[in-house]
C-alpha cells in the first residue's frame, strides 16, 4: 500500500502534485492500482464451463414395450468391462480399447442414423468408460444409444 500519512509535502516531487494537499495524486493512483491488482488476483480463476452430452433414453426403464419401436433399427452391442485402470470394449466379437472401439464404430456404421447401440457393462465399470461409448455414438451420429441394465444381485431395484 502506498504511503499515506506524513506531513511532508510531496507536491514538488514530480508525481502530479495536488496544490494545497499534502499527498500527490500519484499516491492515489498507486493505491488504486494495488487494490485493483489485488482484486484481480483474488477473483481470477481458470475456469472451464461445464458442457453436456445430450442423450435420449428409451422411456419406461426396462419395459419390454419399447422393443416394438426399436426393431426397425440395426442393433449393435458393446460390452464394457474393467481392464486395469481403463476399460475393455467387446464389440463385434473383438475386444478393443476405446480408440479401437471408436474406429470400429465409425467404420462399421457410416452415416449411423439407422443404427442403435446397446451398452452393457460390469457393475464395477467406471462411469467415464461408459460415457465414452455415448461420446463415440455421438461422433458416429448415432442418436439412439441405450443401456442394458445389470441382472441379478447388482440389478437396480
Amino acid at each position, binding site marked *: 500500500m502506498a504511503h499515506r500519512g506524513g506531513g511532508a509535502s510531496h507536491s514538488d516531487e514530480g508525481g502530479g502534485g495536488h496544490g494545497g494537499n499534502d499527498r500527490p495524486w500519484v499516491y492515489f493512483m498507486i493505491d488504486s492500482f494495488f487494490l485493483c491488482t489485488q482484486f484481480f488476483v483474488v477473483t481470477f480463476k481458470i475456469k472451464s464451463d461445464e458442457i453436456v*452430452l445430450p442423450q*435420449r433414453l428409451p422411456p419406461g426403464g426396462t419395459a419390454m414395450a419399447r422393443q416394438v419401436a426399436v426393431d426397425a433399427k440395426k442393433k449393435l452391442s458393446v460390452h464394457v468391462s474393467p481392464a486395469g485402470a481403463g476399460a475393455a470394449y467387446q464389440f463385434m466379437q473383438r475386444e478393443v480399447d476405446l480408440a479401437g472401439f471408436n474406429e470400429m464404430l465409425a467404420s462399421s456404421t457410416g452415416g449411423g442414423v439407422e443404427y442403435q447401440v446397446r451398452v452393457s457393462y460390469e457393475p464395477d465399470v467406471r462411469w467415464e468408460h461408459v460415457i*465414452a461409448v455415448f461420446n463415440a455414438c*455421438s461422433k458416429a451420429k448415432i442418436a439412439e444409444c441405450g443401456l442394458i441394465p445389470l441382472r441379478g444381485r447388482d440389478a437396480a431395484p
Partner: protein
Amino acid sequence: MSMSPPEETKVEVDMVPMIDIITLLLMFLVVVGDMAASANTIQMKLPRADQALTDKEMKEKGFRLEGRIVVQLQPVDKTHPEGHYSAIINNKPYALEVQGSGKQLIEYLDDQVNYNVNKGLAKKDSTGAVDMPVKLRIPEDAPMREVERVIMSLAKVGMVNVHYASEPFAKAK
C-alpha cells in the same frame, strides 16, 4: 480596526479511503457471490467428452433447457465396500433405493413430472416420455451399478431427455 473576510477553507474529499472501501466491498461481493453460485454445484471430477455441447450450442440446436432439473450423484459412505451414492437435487439428498424413511429419487422425480404435466409446463407423449430435460452430474469414477439406478429412475418416470455433464475436451479436428 480592520475587518478582514474570513478565510475560505477548502473542503476536499479524500478519495483513497473511498477507493479502498469500494474495492474491498467489491472483492467481498464477488468472492461471496461466486461461492453462493457454486453452492448448489458439488465439486466433482466429471468425465470428458469431445462431443459435448455448451448450453448456448444446445439452444442453437433446438434442445430445450427450460425447467431443467439438475441431479447430482454423490458418495455418502466411502467406507462401504460397494460405495453408496445418493442423488442430490437442490442440496437435498434422495436415496437411490428404498432406504430408511428418506425420500427416494424416483418419488421426487415422479412428483415433479406430475406437477409439470398438470400445470402444462411439460408434455407426456403416448410412449410415456416427458419433454422435461434433466442434467446428470455424475463423477467419472462412479461405478455403473450406482449410475444405473439413477438412469433407470429417470427412464421409469419418462424423463428421457438427459444431458450428461462433462468436462471440456480438446475437440478432435
